[in-house]
């Protein structure tokens, strides 16, 4: 099967959005069309790469230069899962923006396409990178593009949120880079796999704290809500669904592939995750604005991902790994759907104050329904992707005798139910609207929420493969 797949195909998911993003600066018209064409190209390339048999690692030495001076890209199952889910979400967001943002806010839409493509290219390059220094460079590319998304509204809160984000990211990447320096001097390599078992604890700690700052992982999450809430809706969808997962992706590789024996550190990560679930959910409950509820919900949902680290041990490594990866994918789909729906709420009502959402159930039922369907995944109810993922994590928790983590998983679901029902409940009743929401964009948001729900039904094959492929 893989005979037909040339390694150069690995370059397509990075080269297409990067090239299109650069071309964008020359174009006056047709920017959304170029984005959709490049995005479709990425999706096709990623679907072709799905043909790579499980267990093989497709590799590409960029420019023909071998490591260590050259850049080596590789594709394994973890990379392909993130490439695919990113392609689906990014393309849906691009389609939403082409249909809706271009009409409702043309001045913002003009500048949306280049950062979208740069975020996408940086994410794909990050997923394909095999060494800690390339990961650093791709993280920086990602941060710059993501900060551009925050600034799009062109007002003071947007610039303030963007600056806060950029400064935390700057501190985070410097810490990470110092960790890379120690990593390299101690192991003599930058490769995550070749360094396995030899990573010094100081390097691991520095890289982890840096990544936690970049990924808004509790207690370094404070920059996320103002930044994510300040971006236009499709930008928030990209930031909350995709950008913050990059740090989790590197943490997964670092802790499971390179440094498998640090039990105390893993428990510490689990405790940070617990703090994120409790603190993020409680703050989500008390917010007055819809977008801030969703942003704090992201803080909470990222906390679950950290529970993978204490749970992925011994015989339960595969189960917890598959559960964590699937939770990241399902949350990405659900949160993108919710932020797009929040954009439609802003359009329909002219604001996003939860106390004044009345009228949505009557005038924008599809949008309110989207919050419900996506909420099923956040709560972890069957048959959603969130349910299957949490089920795997719970199995690992009970199987490995670490039941306290199970309490976090279940308690967080209850809190998610409360803040989701608060949004939906507020939408009923008679209230004034400014204008009718357009039909097609509503269906795109609903389709993403539907995919998050389906991720629980059609998950058997990828989950079995992920369990086997766990490091």
């Amino acid at each position, binding site marked *: 099967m893989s005979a037909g797949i040339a390694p150069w195909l690995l370059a397509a998911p990075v080269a297409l959005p990067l090239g299109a993003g650069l071309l964008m600066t020359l174009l006056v018209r047709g920017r959304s069309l170029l984005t959709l064409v490049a995005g479709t190209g990425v999706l096709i390339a990623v679907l072709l790469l799905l043909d790579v048999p499980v267990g093989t690692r497709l590799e590409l030495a960029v420019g023909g230069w071998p490591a260590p001076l050259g850049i080596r890209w590789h594709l394994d199952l973890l990379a392909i899962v993130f490439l695919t889910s990113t392609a689906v979400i990014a393309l849906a967001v691009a389609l939403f923006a082409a249909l809706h943002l271009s009409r409702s806010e043309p001045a913002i839409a003009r500048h949306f396409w280049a950062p979208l493509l740069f975020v996408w290219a940086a994410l794909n390059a990050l997923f394909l990178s095999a060494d800690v220094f390339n990961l650093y460079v791709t993280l920086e590319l990602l941060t710059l593009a993501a900060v551009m998304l925050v600034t799009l509204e062109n007002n003071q809160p947007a610039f*303030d949120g963007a600056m806060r984000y950029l400064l935390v990211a700057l501190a985070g990447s410097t810490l990470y880079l110092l960790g890379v*320096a120690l990593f390299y001097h101690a192991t003599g390599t930058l490769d995550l796999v070749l360094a396995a078992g030899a990573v010094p604890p100081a390097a691991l700690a520095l890289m982890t704290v840096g990544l936690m700052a970049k990924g808004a992982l509790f207690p370094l999450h404070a920059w996320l809500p103002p930044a994510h809430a300040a971006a236009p809706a499709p930008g928030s969808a990209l930031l909350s669904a995709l950008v913050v997962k990059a740090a989790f992706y590197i943490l997964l590789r670092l802790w499971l592939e390179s440094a498998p024996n640090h039990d105390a550190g893993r428990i510490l990560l689990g405790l940070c995750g617990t703090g994120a679930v409790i603190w993020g959910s409680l703050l989500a409950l008390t917010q007055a604005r819809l977008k801030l509820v969703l942003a704090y919900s992201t803080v909470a949902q990222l906390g679950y991902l950290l529970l993978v680290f204490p749970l992925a041990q011994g015989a339960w490594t595969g189960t917890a790994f598959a559960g964590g990866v699937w939770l990241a994918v399902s949350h990405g789909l659900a949160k993108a759907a919710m932020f797009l729906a929040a954009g439609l709420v802003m359009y329909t009502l002219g604001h996003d104050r939860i106390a004044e959402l009345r009228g949505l159930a009557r005038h924008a039922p599809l949008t309110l329904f989207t919050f419900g369907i996506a909420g099923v995944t956040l709560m972890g109810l069957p048959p959603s992707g969130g349910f299957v993922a949490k089920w795997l994590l719970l199995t690992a928790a009970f199987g490995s005798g670490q039941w306290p983590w199970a309490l976090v998983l279940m308690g967080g679901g209850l809190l998610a139910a409360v803040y989701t029902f608060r949004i939906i409940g507020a939408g009923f009743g008679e209230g004034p609207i400014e204008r009718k929401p357009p039909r097609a964009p509503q269906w795109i948001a609903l389709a993403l929420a539907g995919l998050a729900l389906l991720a629980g039904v059609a998950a058997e094959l990828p989950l079995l493969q992920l369990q086997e492929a766990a490091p």
Partner: protein
Amino acid sequence: MTGVEVPLIYVVTGIFIFLRGLYALFARPHLLHKLVAGNLAASGVFLVIAWSPQGGPPDPVAQALVLTGIVVSVAVTAYAAALLARLEQTSGKPYLEHDPDR
């Protein structure tokens, strides 16, 4: 100075500069101070990377890392400076707002 002490000076100085920069990045309220502090911290890290263990011939990989790191640092600094200028234009002051949620 012997061959062992020279690299140690790089590492100790590098870590000191890194910590000094990181502290100022959080402690100084003026955004331009924060920006310079971030650059200072990164320079400290570059010194640590450039250290070659035996004090022998320079390590080409480490040099490539430092060069790439400087390029990244220049790009981030340029972007942050532009953002700082826009922030000052809109808010009238080169500081961050407190408590953005409220």
